[in-house]
Each structure stands twice: as C-alpha cells, then as structure tokens.
C-alpha cells in the first residue's frame, strides 16, 4: 500500500496544548479525523514535519444548545452531527448536508472542523507522487502550470466541503484560537477564492467551534450532485436559505453553491432574482436560470463541465422549490443523498 512519510506526531490534550505546539514548531499541520490529511500525506501532496493531533482534546467534542445558538465543537464527528436531534430539528438542511458526506465509515472518523478546512481538490492534484511527477506536477504543488486551465495565473482546485455551503447559507460563524488569542468570523470569511490559498485561517490557528444559529424564519434545503449516492465528493451542491414575509415575498436570500469553484460561492444573481418577488414557481425558475453565471465548473472533477454547468439550473430550481414547499419531481434526491 501507499506509505506515510515519517513525521513528528504531537498528541495535544487541550486546545492550549495544541496552540502551543503549533506556535513552537514550524511546518505544522493539524489532524482531526485524518480522513483527508492521511491520504494526502500518503500521496505526498500535503507534507508536514510536525502533525498536531486534536483526537484527545475532549473539550472540542459535542453539540451544545446555548439557548440562542447551537455550538458544535470542531472535533465532533459528522455522524454525531447528523444524528443530533437538535441539529436535525433546528437546521435540517445542515443535517442533510453532513449526512451526504462520503460514507458512514468516513463520517464516523471525519469531523466538522476537518470538513470545513478540507483541502481543495483536483484530478491533477489528488494523485500519488509518481503520477504527479509524470505531468511535471501542477501549480498547487511543486509545479508551474494549472493543467485545468494552462494559461491561468491561478489554481482552480475545487472546494469540496458539503457542510460549508449549508453552514454559510444559514449564517454560521467559526471561532479560531491561537496563542495570540481568538477571533470569531462569519464562515464565508474563512474562505478565499483560490485553490492554493483557500483558507483565511493562519497555520497556527485552530478552528475550535462552529456557531450555528437556531432556526429562524428562513426556508432552507440542500441538494447535491455526484456520480453515486454514497462515497463520492460532490460535483455540485446548492444550499439556499430564503426569508419571506407574510405575503410570501422574498425579503432575504442567502444562497451558496459548492464544488463549482475554489470556495463556497455566493449566488448573487439568483438572490437578486428572488428579492422582492413572490417565492413561487415562476420566480424560482428565473432565479435558477441565472444561477450559472456565478459558478465555473471546470474539467477537474467527475463529469464533463458542460453538463455540470447545465445542472446548476436544475439543482438550483429543485433546491429552491423544496425550500418553498413546492413539489419536486426528480430522481436526484434518491440519486444524491445517502439518506
């Protein structure tokens, strides 16, 4: 099998412990569930001389009801989140997004912190050392060229987190801790539109907590497109959170798409098409029609980009219709969710 390189493993017992290790050592990485980092290190496209494990940090585990909000520790497993009655009752779209991640065994290991910080993905990058050597590497790791778009000055690796768009749409925040102190930022501010420098989190900062608002008036849903109904990363996710007034007029809209760019993309065009209009089939069809202006599927994951681009409209329409309580007549729910 592929083998891990040698490195120093620090098993932190507390957040302070971990923060100190990250401050004192250079060339560090944090490991939570290990479902992303270990395969990446075996393939040698993520490297570290010191890996700080949060596995023993008990304070980072669990879903807490703090009255106005839900606080989810970064080390809470994905299984524990989608099995949480609280999350399911307050934010069912988040529960659905988390349940759609990979497969049950991976969700038993994978954590919410890890999923939010998931390395961006690309079929020219998620390959072993020898394979990448055969293409003379790529811009994201050791190379010069982005093989997805060879004349591009930037890397187009894809944000593949399913929880991120769902949590961005409902206004979740994340708390980051380092030896310099802590800060809490809206989740969308955690991300940069860049396949390489995709996180605003500094390497010495630890994402310790996700702060999730309780259900407000917003209507939400989550739709995911992928080849198979389990295991696969998304090639498209759509997560709307729509607020309407008493006359069913849209007063607020937050819609995010995943897997069609290097970060969770806010779908401004669709939001504009909804605002001030009745949340009905006609408005939704228009909002869906313009959605693809905000996403850029490229040839660096499964399926051809042209079809994925076409699916943005279909999936946006389905997700918005479901949020609006309209009938959705598609095979896709059975196709897309491991429910």
């Amino acid at each position, binding site marked *: 099998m592929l083998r891990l390189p040698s490195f120093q493993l620090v098993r932190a017992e507390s957040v302070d412990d971990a923060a100190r290790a990250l401050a004192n050592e250079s060339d560090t990485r944090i490991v939570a569930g290990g479902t992303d980092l270990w395969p990446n290190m075996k393939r040698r496209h993520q490297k570290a001389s010191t890996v700080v494990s949060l596995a023993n940090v008990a304070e980072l585990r669990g879903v807490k009801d703090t009255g106005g909000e839900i606080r989810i520790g970064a080390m809470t497993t994905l299984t524990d989140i989608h099995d949480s009655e609280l999350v399911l009752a307050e934010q069912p779209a988040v529960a659905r997004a988390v349940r759609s991640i990979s497969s049950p065994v991976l969700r038993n290991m994978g954590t919410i912190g890890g999923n939010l910080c998931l390395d961006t993905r690309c079929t020219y990058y998620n390959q072993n050392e020898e*394979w990448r050597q055969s*293409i003379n590497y790529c811009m994201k790791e050791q190379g010069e060229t982005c*093989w997805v778009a*060879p004349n591009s000055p930037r890397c187009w690796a894809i944000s593949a987190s399913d929880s991120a768009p769902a949590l961005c749409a409902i206004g979740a925040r994340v708390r980051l801790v380092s030896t310099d102190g802590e800060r809490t930022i809206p989740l969308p501010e955690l991300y940069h539109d860049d396949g390489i420098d995709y996180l605003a989190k500094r390497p010495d900062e630890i994402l310790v907590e996700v702060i999730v608002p309780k259900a407000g008036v917003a209507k939400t849903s989550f739709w995911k497109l992928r080849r*198979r109904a389990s295991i696969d990363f998304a090639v498209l996710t759509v997560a709307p959170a729509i607020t309407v007034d008493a006359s069913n007029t849209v007063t607020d809209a937050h819609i995010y798409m995943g897997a069609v760019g290097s970060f969770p993309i806010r779908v401004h065009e669709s939001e504009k098409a909804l605002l001030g209009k009745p949340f009905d089939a006609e408005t939704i069809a228009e909002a869906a029609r313009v959605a693809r202006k905000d996403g850029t599927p490229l040839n660096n994951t499964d*399926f051809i980009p042209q*079809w994925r681009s076409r699916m943005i409209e*279909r999936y946006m329409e389905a997700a918005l219709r479901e949020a609006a309580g309209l009938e959705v007549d*598609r095979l896709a729910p059975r196709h897309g969710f491991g429910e």
Partner: protein
Amino acid sequence: MGKTKTPKAEAPLSDAASEAPSEGSTDKKNVASDRPLNLIGKPFRRVDGRAKVTGQTKFADDLHFPRTVHMKLVRSTVPHAEIVSIDTTEAAGMPGVLGFLTGDDMPNTFGILPVSQDEHALCVGKVRFVGDPVVAVAALTEDQAHEAALKVKVEYNDLTTIASVEQAASTPEPRIHDYGDTGNIHKQVSMSFGDLDAGFAEADEIFEDIYYFEGNTHLPMEQHASIAFTEDDGRVTIYSSTQTPHYLHRSLAKVLELPASRIRVIACPNGGGFGGKSDPFNHEICAAKMALKLGRPVKIALTREEVFYCHRGRHPVLMKTRTGFKKDGRMTAQHLQTALDGGAYGSYGVASTYYTGALQTVTYDLPKYRFDSIRAFTNKPPCGPKRGHGTPQPRAAFETHLDKAAHRLGIDPADIRLNNLVPPDSVTANYLKVGSIGLGDCIEAVVKGSGWRERYGKLPEGRGLGLACGSYLCGAGLPIYWNFMPQSGVQIKLDRSGGVAVFCGETEIGQGSDSVLAACVAEILGIDLQDIRLCVADTDLTPVDLGSYSSRVTLMVGNAAVQAAERAREIIAKAAGEKLDVPPSRLAFSEHRVFDIEDDERSMSFVEAVQAAEAKFGTLGTTGSYIPPRSPGRYRGAGVGPSPAYSYSAAVVEVEVDPQTGIYQVEHVWMAHDVGKCINPALVMGQIEGSVYMGLGEAMMEEQVFRRLPKKRSNALVHKHPSLLEYKSPTFHEMPPVTSYIIEDPDPNGPFGAKEVGQGPLLPMPPAVANAIFDAVGVRVDQVPIGPHHVLEALERKAKGKEGRVGPNKFPDYDFGVPLNVPTVAEGGDGKATNQETAGVRKGIGTMKDREEAVGKGGQ
C-alpha cells in the same frame, strides 16, 4: 431469492458403474442415469466459505516468513521513451536498502501468448507507458523500500506519444514494439464465411450501426501480492495472487533461466480476479529474482495505483455492424468490423482481437458472416481479458443493433431474437459447434418475469424496459500454447482413514472452483464434502490445470474430477463387491456407504470399502484428465471461439430516466442463465448477481480512461484516475434488485451436464440498459458507459429535430487485408479456407499443419 426453472428433462448423474447405456442418448455420457443426485444441484455451503468469513483464509498479502524483506517497483513516469540512464546511488544509501534489479538482470522476454513474448520483467532499453516498471528495490521494511524507490533517478529520451488507435494507424514510426503486423498495428484479421454478397442480396433491409465500448478494468478488492523465497540447491518458491499458476510457472522458468522443476508456484486464493490476474506479471518475476539474489524471502504488495497499471482489462473497441434482414426479422448476412486499443503490450490481445468477432454467431443464426479487426499498440497500460474477454463489446453492439432493427421492422425485440435462434447441435458459419442451447428458455423466462408482453413500450414516459442476450464459452477449445496434453488433471489419493485427498492445479478466485471440484468427487464416491481434503494450485504437488480463465474450470476440472472419482469408485467397488459377494456393477455409493442396489442390507461403510481396496490393490490413487473435443474449423484463426459448450443468458432491465437531467436509475434486473446443470444453485445465483453488478458498472460508469496533456507543453499520457474513489464503480445504492432464473439444458460435454456461469451473465447487461433507456425516453446512446450527460445530450438533440442519438458516427477506413475465404457448411465447405495462401499470411501463429495436428489430437 430467484427462482429455478427446469424446462428440460432432469439430467441426473451418470453412473459409470452401471454399464447399461441410457435410452436414445448414447452421446450424453455424463447425463446418463436416472439415479438421484445426493449433492449436485442442491445448494450447499462452499467449502472455503467459513474460512473466508472468519478471516482464516490466507491471501498472498497475509503471508509472512522469517527474515522477509520488502520490494517496490520504480515505474516509468513517461509514456514512451528510451531509457538513457538509471542512477541508484542516492537510493542505495537510504536506510534499510538491500538491493536493486534492473532490466539487465532479466534479459529474456515473456508474455502469456507464445506469439506475444513482448514483456520484460523490468524494462530493457525503453519504456512504453506511465507505470511500466524499470527498477526493483528491496529493503528491510516496506516504508524503506518506498522511500528508496522515490530516490531512484531514471533519465529518459522521450519518443512520440501514441494515444489512440487512430494515431497508431497513422503513426507507423516510432514503433512501440519491433514486431506485429505493421507499424503500430499489432494484429490485423479479416475472415469471410460464406458468400457475403449473396447474403446481403437476399436481404429486404440492410442496417448499419456504429458503437463504442470504452475500456474498463477488473477492480478486484485484493491488490496483487506475491512472496518468494529460495530453498536449498537453487530452488525458488513463490506464493502469488494469480489465476494462472501454470503459466506463471512457465514464464518464471523462461526469465529466470531455471528448469521448471526447480520452481514452485502456489496460487493463493484470489480476492477477486475477473481476468486481471491471468497474465504472468513483472512483480511476480522480480520477487522470485530478488529472492534468488538476496537469499531471503521477498514480498511485494501492489498499491491500488499499480493495479490500475497492471490492468489487462476490457479493450476499448469501436465497432461497425452491418446486417441484412428479411422482413420477418431473419438475418441473411452480417459484416462486423472492430478496432481495439490494445495498450502497450500484447498480453492476450491476439486472442481478444479474434474474440471480438468469434462468438457473434452462436446466439442467432447468421448464414453468412464476415469479420474484420485490428488491434493497435498505444502508450497505455496493456488491455487483456476481463470477464467476457473480448465478447461483451461486440455483444453490446449486436444487441443494440438488433433492438433498432426490431423497431425498424416492427417486430417485438423478444420475438426477433426468438425467431433467429441457433438450433441445438449445429455448426455456425464460422465453424463453431453449438451443442445445447437454452437461450429460448432464457428469453421466455425473463419476458414472463418482467411482464414484458404487457409492459414493453407501454410504460409512462421516463420508464422503460430493455432486453438483451449473450453467450459465452465453457473453456477455450485449445490451450494457450500448442501441446497435446490435458487441459486439466486431477489426482485422488485414498487410504484406510477413509479420507479422500484431491489434487488439482485449479485456482480458487472466489468463483467457487474448490467447491465444484470437491462436489464432483463427493457425489461420485457418496461421501460428504467434509471428508475431502483439497490440495490445489501448487505446481509441485498438483497435476496441471491451465488456470481460472475462459470459464473453463467447472467443465474441464469437473470432467477430470469425475473421471478420477469414477476410477476410484471402480477400484473400491471391485474390492467391496468381492467382500459383499455382489457384482461391482450392482454397487451404489451413497451416504458414506457402499451397498447392493438390489438388497441394501448387503452393504459396508465407505471406510471399510476403501480398506478392502487398499488390502486388495495396495496403495490407492487414481487420476483423471480432460481434453476438449475437436472443433470443425480448419482455417487460420479457427483456434479462437471453439468450446466444448456455450452458456446462454437473457436479461430484461427496467430503468427510470429523469428527462430534465438525464440521470437514470436501474430499478430491476431479470436475468436468466442457461447453466446446463447446476452443480450448486447458491453459487450459480451468486455468479449471476455478481455478473449483473459488474455489467451494470460497465453500462453506467466504469471507464479506464487517460489524460493527454496539451501537446505543446507535455508528452504526458496518464491514467485519469487510478484510484478506487475516482474510478467509479456502483455502490449498494446503485445495485437494483435482481431476479435470477437458472435454466438447465444439460450439455453432454459438461460434468453432470454443467456449463459455465462465471462470465456469461455479464454480457446482456450493457445493451439491456441501453435498450431500456430507449424504451423510457426514445433516445439511443450508442456507447458505454452511458452517463447522464449522454442521455441529456441525446434528448436535446432529439428536441431540436435531430437524430436522438449520441455515439460515434464514423468507423475509420482501416486496411484489414485480403479476407480469408471460408465456405460455410451449407455451401459445402469443409472448414478450410479456399485462399489460405493468398490471404494475408502473417508470421508467428503456427502453421496450419501444427494447428491441424493439435486440433486433431484434441479429444482423443
């Protein structure tokens, strides 16, 4: 659970002890008696089942010996290049490193076919694809071997990258190999059976279709692994996950330059093979060589990426089918052209090439038939045999072609098939001898089960049914290398303990071959499976069996086992008869006893009977062997296609398609398979369902495809996704409910009438899915895999008033040479070509005289 249907008369066990021939069926030697069977035909637990589910089975990677060291292969990172230099200096200084091998250490070539000895254990002079092994590194631990492998430096001088059949045909130089029919075309075939023009002239309608079947790979859960060690006096032993220990044995002898008698190959149970472990492999030979060099056990376990590079999977094939039809759907002639992308080495490719044409004739009557084919070398991992070997591609082309023809002619797709069936006991246009054929019963079973007559063409938009059929070999009629020896041998040892030891070279790859072997012996000796000790797949201890490929094991090993067991029974019966004072022919063996069928009070236990035989005859042992019957074809190429018997399958698939996205789901599969006679219905069902699963993967998503980087910037040609995550294969969610029908039409050549089931039921799946999509939404996707984007594109084309079809439009104008002309039996032909001398004669495949002699001695 599926249902079992037995449309024909029961086909019970032959009873060789009773000499009386059964009425009117003197040729049915194995289906001759009315004595009920004890074991055969009833579901029983597989003999290796408990060990597998409790983790006791030792796969190759589970083995470890004292002082074992680990080996890694440094593989080419360029698709096509000369090796300029190899520098192991830095790697040699890495911790734990013990030694290296390069191509210079093993100059002899090897390969599975005698005509394609084109592989080196490690590349000599040049590399031919990304993944071609160049250097072997051994170290104390696997980690150390891996780190050292990454430090080996190989300098290359790039050659032109050949990425496709078209490019290979138009780029004769540089040649990937310095042999083959021409330039980078490895093999050209053209053969015409009967007066094709006359056949087409008789037709009322002539239809032509072009179809593409993408390559895909086996995806066994077990990655290949081997461990080799030396013993005194220059002997070497290798345990390996191989389907063909005998062929590995031969290749080792050739490359290591050791007498075969000093090499021992033991095939471990395979964690899935599907054809992907049928070639002798570089890593196996390197492990043996490294063990000889270091004098320590050497182990190598491939990574998943390396398994994708070993490949030998389904060839990508472009096909053109042209068929003449009468108004009533009868076919008058067919002309099939195929073009195979072979990858970088020969492997089984010459056979694969012939197989893309050979079995088109055994399902529906084709009075005149022409077949042209080419196989090209390209800079990709070599293609070879995957479940169905070369036949699923043309079968998919034929069955979709037939579905279209049925629609054009206004005939139900089930009827057009039923009306064209090949008659039993007949000879096809290309001289294949068809014995039993249960295809009609298969079609009737799935038509009835699926409610076809009531539902086909009448389901709501988006729902559809599709029907398709298939056929496969029960072992190839000829061995891979010319010889007159048995294809399968079994030895039985019995002694006073009452235990029966059965020795056979057969290899358990998960298909249940151990259980078949044990069951055949247990049935005839009237004992339990638990009383049988198997010793299999060990070239030192077991008689040769050619291996687990071409669905040959049940029929060939089964027949050899039956013969050995009957001989044992005869010996025991002689001794027991003497003791009981009963003529041996009146003795029956059942429930651990030997008794007089006319007076069952006169009996003794099986153990006592064996003791009587050991006392009378001395140490007891018998052998059995099997050689297939001779086939009637006498033309060049007639060696590919003949089989002692053909299995048949028919499937109906139900799909639901979302016309907004093209996403579709297979809702149900009805699969009927003519297995001749079930040895074990539980295993037969397992094989049917496994074939449905694998065929569904090929239909829906599996593809072994490559990325060519922009030519101005790079020569790279890499496997697009050598990983289990990105090479898409169905999960539980995609697997539909399956209703299986076991059709039993016993074949006189099969043990107890049994035929194969390991590969056949895969064949109908891809075309049945395609035909169902057509019934659901009225569009044709003439290629596999069928992605939702293809379905949507076809729907959009149709909506714009264009042809509702996605697929290749053109078959390139390849030169196949002058066709070999073989008159059919109906035309008075004798199986020989009329223009043997003038038709493009090519080197390397043996003279007609060799072939005639070999064929002539077969079955004697």
